[in-house]
């Protein structure tokens, strides 16, 4: 097993025992089942008591006259689907970032996507008084995407292209700049603060199928790119020189990987606001079970990330009944301790 997978620049230990291929293949449908089960649980839970039969009927045999069916179809199903999609996208984006930068601490936040999205939304609320989730999503996607391009551009300048150190520093500097501007707006404009403070926590409540439909094409392209690039990222993870020696066009692979990350993380932040920790923790958990081959890491991250976020959302609704804790809070409350346990267990140095 990858004993040192959390150590910087040592993602690939010399002797790695991968689980047998048959086990890896078998694991995928099991994880898919877990995801579907989690989504069903999410749909069944809620303020209104709805029994399992009605839930099933509402999904397979929808009757618009029935209030319970309406609750399921317009409130709970979009919520579960959003959580699953966002969790999958964030986990895959995090896995690619970690492979791309060979830094186990990398996550989509490193490219400044969350800081950029937050700044764009807060700025738009301040200037244009926008107030619908759909408009937030547009600004969040644009802001996050532009910031990521700026960070990647700055981090790739100079010979040698994008090195992990340059990317990290560029991301930190640009994020700090944007965050302080965001704070300044919220300090001096109470209306904006009031308006955005719930969005800024990250939540999957109140999203509808129309919003999901707008996001879906980008998600599909991003996830598709990630699945296709798995083999190349595994090679890239051995180091630029080795990858080049093996005949890889590293520049193109890095560029396409970055595009996938921007699409996935951008759509996530557009759908659910800035949600931390999924992109950081899930790939580590996945790597622990499936080894270092990104052809397996990507699909497993997708399924386990989705399951994790759906469950976080369910738990957030259960622990604080009758109100709820936003999923952005829950990922940190649950993911934080898991991460610490993982570190204590695995980082031997």
């Amino acid at each position, binding site marked *: 097993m990858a004993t040192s997978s959390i150590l910087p620049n040592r993602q690939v230990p010399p002797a790695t025992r991968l689980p047998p291929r048959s086990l890896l293949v078998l694991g995928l449908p099991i994880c898919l089942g877990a995801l579907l089960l989690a989504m069903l649980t999410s749909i069944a839970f809620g303020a209104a008591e709805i029994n399992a039969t009605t839930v099933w009927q509402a999904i397979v045999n929808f009757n618009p006259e029935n209030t319970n069916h309406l609750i399921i179809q317009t409130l709970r199903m979009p919520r579960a689907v959003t959580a699953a999609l966002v969790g999958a996208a964030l986990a895959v984006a995090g896995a690619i970032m970690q492979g791309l930068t060979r830094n186990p601490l990398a996550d989509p936040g490193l490219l400044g996507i969350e800081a950029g999205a937050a700044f764009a939304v807060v700025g738009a609320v301040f200037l244009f008084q926008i107030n619908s989730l759909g408009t937030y999503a547009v600004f969040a996607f644009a802001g996050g995407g532009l910031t990521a391009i700026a960070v990647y551009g700055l981090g790739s300048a100079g010979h040698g292209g994008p090195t992990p150190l340059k990317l990290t*520093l560029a991301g930190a*500097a*640009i994020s700090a700049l944007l965050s*302080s501007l965001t*704070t300044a707006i919220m300090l001096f404009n109470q209306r904006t603060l009031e308006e955005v403070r*719930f969005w800024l926590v990250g939540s999957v409540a109140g999203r509808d199928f129309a919003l999901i439909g707008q996001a879906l094409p980008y998600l599909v392209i991003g996830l598709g790119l990630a699945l296709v690039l798995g083999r190349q990222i595994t090679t890239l993870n051995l180091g630029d020189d080795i990858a080049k020696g093996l005949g890889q066009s590293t520049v193109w692979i890095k560029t396409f990987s970055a595009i996938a990350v921007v699409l996935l993380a951008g759509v996530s932040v557009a759908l659910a606001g800035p949600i*931390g920790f999924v992109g950081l923790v899930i790939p580590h958990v996945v790597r622990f079970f499936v080894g270092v081959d990104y052809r397996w890491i990507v699909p497993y991250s997708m399924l386990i990330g989705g399951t994790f976020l759906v469950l976080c959302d369910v738990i957030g609704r259960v622990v604080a009944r009758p109100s709820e804790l936003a999923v952005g809070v829950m990922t940190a409350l649950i993911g934080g301790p898991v991460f610490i346990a993982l*570190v204590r267990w695995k980082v031997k*140095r």
Partner: protein
Amino acid sequence: MNSPYPWLIVRTRRPALSFKLDHRVPLMTAIALTLTLIILIWNVGTGEYPISPLNVIKTIFGLETGNGDYTFVVNTLRLPRALVAWLVGVMLALAGGIMQSLTRNALASPDITGVTAGASLGAVVLLVVFPAASVISLPAAALSGGLLVAVLIYVMAWRHGDSPIRLILVGIGLAAVLGAAQTILLLRTDIERVQRALYWLTGSVYARSWEHLAALLPWAIVLIPVALFSARHLNALNLGEEVARGLGSAVQWQRALLLLTSVGLTGAAISQVGAIGFVGLIAPHLARRLVGPAHEGSMPVAGLIGGLLVLASDFVGRTLFAPIEVPAGIIIALIGAPFFIYLLWRYRGAL
């Protein structure tokens, strides 16, 4: 670096001292000190009640200026605030310098010890849950929160010895949990309190007085010399644990002492002014760029740059949109981040 004598060797018999400095250190120190003094005097003289630089100097030294108001404006209002800003900057920069060498991570800043997360939670709990008690006990709540969390992280990261990488990672995990707790508190309170908390979380030296300076001084007097005299150990630790051990450093003890110093400096500084960020990250980088990586030179220069940064940021924030005051914590990032980006661009081939 093409000078034939790149190093200045300092050797004295009594007290028995021996160290070498990069040849750029004296010049850079002099420049930083001069700039600091100029900005200090300019800052103290500027405001709703302008005072000429000469009169500022006279007032500070207690000489007769022929205007009784000057003493109040300078000595009671503006000078303590400026000194608090400067000292906080020095302390945060040194704390950041220590952390970057200790963890050998260019992105390390005092925050990663968890002090900031703990202090923030302490302050937010007080501001949200006990708003009546907040003015007097805010620094105490922040300081105790910060120190407690730092210790907790050290204990949680301990496993057959300490390890910088485990410290960073456990710090990230715990900071996330504390951040979530803070968010929950802030989501469940009214907007006025949220804004007050946000103000603290940004960091500002607004209306700081001699009392605040007095609260900072004991920490500064003890810990700043420790930080500066640890240069030799930082040099060794920066080469990696094995090398440091080979060079005769008692690695674990050195590291614990340095960590404690960094935590103390950060905790004391932000307990008085709020969670000012970015200084601890950027000042050491600037210092290394200016005088090279040897800590005998880069640590004092980092301290001076940090002090200069916060002092200047407060000055800009106070005067740019007067009478509205922009908190120093925002200005630092607005000035510091573009400068950092420029440095990245300028040295893009070297990283």
